[in-house]
């Protein structure tokens, strides 16, 4: 039996909101980054599902997913570097305590 498109999209939406909630409520910068990854992958799941559903021969949606992987990798590299730099500056990864940009 084939899983319906609605199920894919529902899982994708659940994952995305879990990620969003994580970004909003967690304070640990590393966990926030992980949640961002979760949101990106939720989007990937939706893209793959739509790609599969549309009966096109070229896997245009899947190609998009590959692009997002690459960008996510770059984003993680930069994000972790920032967290590391912030940690060196001040020994914490709690984003609520890093408020030096306060106006």
């Amino acid at each position: 039996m084939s899983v319906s498109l609605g199920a894919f999209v529902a899982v994708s939406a659940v994952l995305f909101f879990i990620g969003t909630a994580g970004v909003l409520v967690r304070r640990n910068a590393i966990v926030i980054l992980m949640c961002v990854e979760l949101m990106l992958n939720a989007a990937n799941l939706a893209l793959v599902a739509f790609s599969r559903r549309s009966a096109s021969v070229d896997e245009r949606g899947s190609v998009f997913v590959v692009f997002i992987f690459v960008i996510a990798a770059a984003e993680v590299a930069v994000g972790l570097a920032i967290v590391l730099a912030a940690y060196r500056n001040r020994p914490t990864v709690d984003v609520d305590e890093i408020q030096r940009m306060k106006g």
Partner: protein
Amino acid sequence: MIQNVWLIPALPLAAFLISGLLGRRWLHHWTGVIASTAVGASAVIAIGVFLEVLGGKTRTIVSLYEWIGVGDFRVNVAALVDPLSSVMLLVVTVVSFLIFVYSNGYMAHDHGFYRFFAWMSLFVFAMLILVMADNFLLLFVGWEGVGLCSYLLIGFWFERPAPYVAAKKAFVMNRIGDWGYTIGMITIFLVFNSLNFTDVFARVEENPPTQSVLTLIAIALFFGATGKSAQLPLYSWLPDAMEGPTPVSALIHAATMVTAGVYLVARSTPLFAAAGPALGIVGIVGAVTAIFAATIALVQFDIKRVMAYSTVSQLGYMFLALGVGAPVAAIFHLATHAFFKALLFLGSGSVIHAVGGEQDMRKMGGLRRKLPVTYWTMLLAGGALAALPPLAGFWSKDEIVGAAFTNGYPILWAIGIFTAVLTAFYVTRALWMTFHGEPRDHHLHDHAHESPGVMTLPLMALAVGTVVLGFAIGWPPEAGFIHRFLTPSVEIPGESEHVAEVGTIVVLAIVSLAAGVLGILVALAMYVRRRPDPVAVARAAGPYYRILVNKYYIDELYDHRFVDAMRALFGIAWAFDIHIVDGIANRLGWLAVLGGGGLRRVQTGIVGNYALTIVAGLLVLLVAYGGYAAGVFTR
């Protein structure tokens, strides 16, 4: 030669630029030589121009270029060369040259030497523009230029407070007068649509505007003249101007600049003659100033201040002459006065130089053996000022006073005669206190020495002018060379000649001579024989003496009436500026600061808040898109 008339002001201008730009670093004391040479060359050209005018070219206009051309309104940078301006050119350049030579000695030890000559050259340039101009606007350029140079040179020793205060006073009072000149000039433009002397005076004769307009113009111009020529009510800057170096006093505040007002009125004779009461006012102001300043000069102890008040008084005589319809006599007196008053000032400078800067006559005395050249030349100049024949002052002053009588102004004549007595008195007193009697300060007396040749030679040259100028150009009275020469350019149209009989002339001359002799005799009685003793006289005169010593309290009156009122007015203006003008700008600034302060709180620095904002924004967009897709907004 007349075509080269522009060289006359160009040379001093070049000297100004060279001295001013190169003097400080490179030329130093050569600036004096350069400036003197330039002015000397100007004098030579001026003599050439004068001779050519004498030879018959009585009216030439040398246009340099068109300055303003709007529609049919034209103002050219052009020189009007006629007998009046050629005489002025001659007087200005010759007297300036002698004073420049003298200054080389007088200013030799001053660290501002180059600056002095730069500004003096600029002054001569401006003065020459003033007397050459063929229109009211160009004349005003020179008019302002001499005012500026006067300010710069009075405040030459600006390290001390008195000179710069005096300079400021002179400038402000001149500006008040300039206001009158400007009003007059603008009115002339509005009425005649031209500023050319030729056009304006032609219109006055052929097609005059109403009497009241002409009177307004004449009074306004005359008010300007009172500022420049130190007449009541704007005279009080001139005595203070003595804070400048003595050659400046001689050149600017005795011989040339202060005669600008006289020149202006003489130049505008057709206008004034047609303007009803204007000439009468000129004459009355002149006469009152003459006697007013002469009384102050009676009791001053600063040798330069005596000369300053004397200058104010003599300028009053010139305006008196203009007022009674004798412009030739006014210019005649202007020329002779330029020589003998410059000589008196330069002589005073020589004395001051000799006694190490002391100006108080009470500390001098007995200097005649120490300073023989200065003494004899000043004696001649003093005689000219007291109007003793055959010295220059006699001819010109006698003519003024005589004209007042024959033209029907007996009261002005009486004032003139009485002023002549006062004049003779104060000049005798000043010369006696300086040169005769016992030395009162032995320290000063012992160190006194005659000035070097570079200073005494100009004195002698001026003395020659003082002796011969009067009868050389003024003989016979009322019909001498100066009259025949000048009358075409200053005659009053329609005025019949008041030719006095020979008997009247002789009687008038004897009366004015008697007045001079009387003044001298009284002064000699008081200061030589001490009978009556001047101190006792001063004590007996009590309050009157104090009024004179305090110069009628005019400075105090001006301070209280005008300066304080102005200060109060400016206080209000200041408050308006601070509270309203600045206030608005500051309040706007505060608004921006407050707004920024509020918005600042948005930037919490907490990443979570930003993320929340992003998500909230996203939700809003989603809801909006959902609504759009569902067609909520289309209906």
